[in-house]
């Protein structure tokens, strides 16, 4: 009996040790960034033009990317969640793939698809569009890596809406657009908002695909993560300060989505 209790205590201690390892390993780098910066240097770094330009580029590009994702992703997710058609599960799997795709592969893929010598390159060129090294390329890279987060969560949110409510609306004479816009979207709003927040956070953090496809130019294509990489060589405190800003943004987004889910 005592032997059993002792081994039970040992087991719990083992679990606690494992958890301590996980927490320590994950928290140390994040705490390190904040401790290294300090509030004084953090506010001071907002005087640097590189930092301001990077934050502006990040805000502009991610706002456009998020708008595109929501406007196109919401009806797409609604279709996936409310109709069944051949190839539907294949499409759901395909949409989830960029979540686990290495960003470097995403960068290569975007070049091969939209670059000057890529699949759509000649067609784009003929209408006068050159994507690489432009702000539009930054938006495309962000939308590519971030949209699965939104579409996936929007799909789940629409799928969780009670179909009898949609049916009831229909029998009351609401048209299909009304059912979508006035019933399904309001009922799914929490999932849609959480998905939008996660997609935005992923877009803000985009690095590899952006560098490969859009390059890095201060004020045009140099987003905050690219500026951190560029500053690391010459201005480590500046890089850390910008890193701290992104860390705080991540905390806010995560806390916001938690609140949304509990709400």
């Amino acid at each position, binding site marked *: 009996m005592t*032997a*059993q209790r002792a*081994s*039970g205590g*040992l*087991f719990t*201690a*083992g*679990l606690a*040790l*494992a958890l301590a*390892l996980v927490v320590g390993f994950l928290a140390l780098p994040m705490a390190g960034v904040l401790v290294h910066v300090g509030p004084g240097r953090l506010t001071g770094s907002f005087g640097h033009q590189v930092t301001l330009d990077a934050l502006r580029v990040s805000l502009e590009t991610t706002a456009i990317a998020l708008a595109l994702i929501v406007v196109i992703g919401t009806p797409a997710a609604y279709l996936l969640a409310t109709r069944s058609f051949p190839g539907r599960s294949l499409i759901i799997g395909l949409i989830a793939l960029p979540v686990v795709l290495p960003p470097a592969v995403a960068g290569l893929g975007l*070049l091969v698809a939209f*670059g*000057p*010598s890529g699949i759509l*390159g000649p067609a784009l060129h003929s209408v006068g569009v*050159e994507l*690489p*090294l*432009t702000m539009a390329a930054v938006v495309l890279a962000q939308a590519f890596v971030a949209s699965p987060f939104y579409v996936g969560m929007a799909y789940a949110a629409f799928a969780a809406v009670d179909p009898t409510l949609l049916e009831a609306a229909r029998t009351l004479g609401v048209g299909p657009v009304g059912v979508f816009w006035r019933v399904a979207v309001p009922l799914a709003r929490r999932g849609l908002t959480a998905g939008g927040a996660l997609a935005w956070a992923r877009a803000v953090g985009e690095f590899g695909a952006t*560098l*490969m*496809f*859009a*390059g*890095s*130019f*201060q004020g*045009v*294509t*140099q987003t905050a993560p690219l500026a951190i*990489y*560029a500053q*690391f*060589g*010459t201005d*480590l405190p500046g890089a850390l300060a910008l890193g701290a800003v992104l860390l705080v943004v991540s905390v806010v987004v995560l806390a916001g989505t938690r609140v949304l889910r509990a709400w």
Partner: protein
Amino acid sequence: MKAGGLAQGVFGLVALLVVAVAWGVAGCGEGNSLRVSAAASLRSAFTRYGAMFGHTVFSFGGSDQLAAQIRAGARPQVFASANRELPDQLFAAGLVERPVPFATNRLVLAVPAHGARVSSLAQLGRPGLRIAIGAPSVPVGAYTAKVLARVGAEGQKIRANVRSQEPSVDGIVGKLTTGGADAGFLYITDVTAVHGALRAIELPRTARPAVVYAAAVVRGGEEARARQFIAGLLGGPGAAALAAAGFGPAP
């Protein structure tokens, strides 16, 4: 008894994890291999030299990034930079031994070998061209800034066409070979290394900056082997590999 077995299992797992991490960390050092942090433009020459020197692992990147890693506590045994300033700064900070200049290079205008929209420096200011250069902090970008300052009013027009400031020569080569950029400033050795994908256009003699590479032994490591590696760059297999890649001899 069953719980005891489980507890043992968890401990075994944690221990295994610790051992795996320790092993992995040791693996990063590749045992007794010489660790060399080198400018991205040295990749082909150093890879060839490393095969002859034996037991070397390389970390290639922008010289400024590699220097920043050493300042932040990374300890390769050799640091080879595409300029003299970065190793000199580390020497002044007491992090490396006195730097040794070991090679020279030549900055050129690089364009895609096929279908190039530019054939001379004079055309580089034409509106609508897309140019990729190095970031100001990386040596290739600093040399490019010197060139643009020396070509007078044309330099401003060229600057207006710059679409990307890349963290190392690798990024510039990538933008040119994928057609993302029409032209870029690279070292002649970078153009040679891609086997015909790019074409080099020589810069006017008066605009050319002096490009000198310097290497230094990083303090606190296996300094004897590091010195041996650097000695080989000045005469011997390292010097031969550098010459084969198109580098000039030390000044």
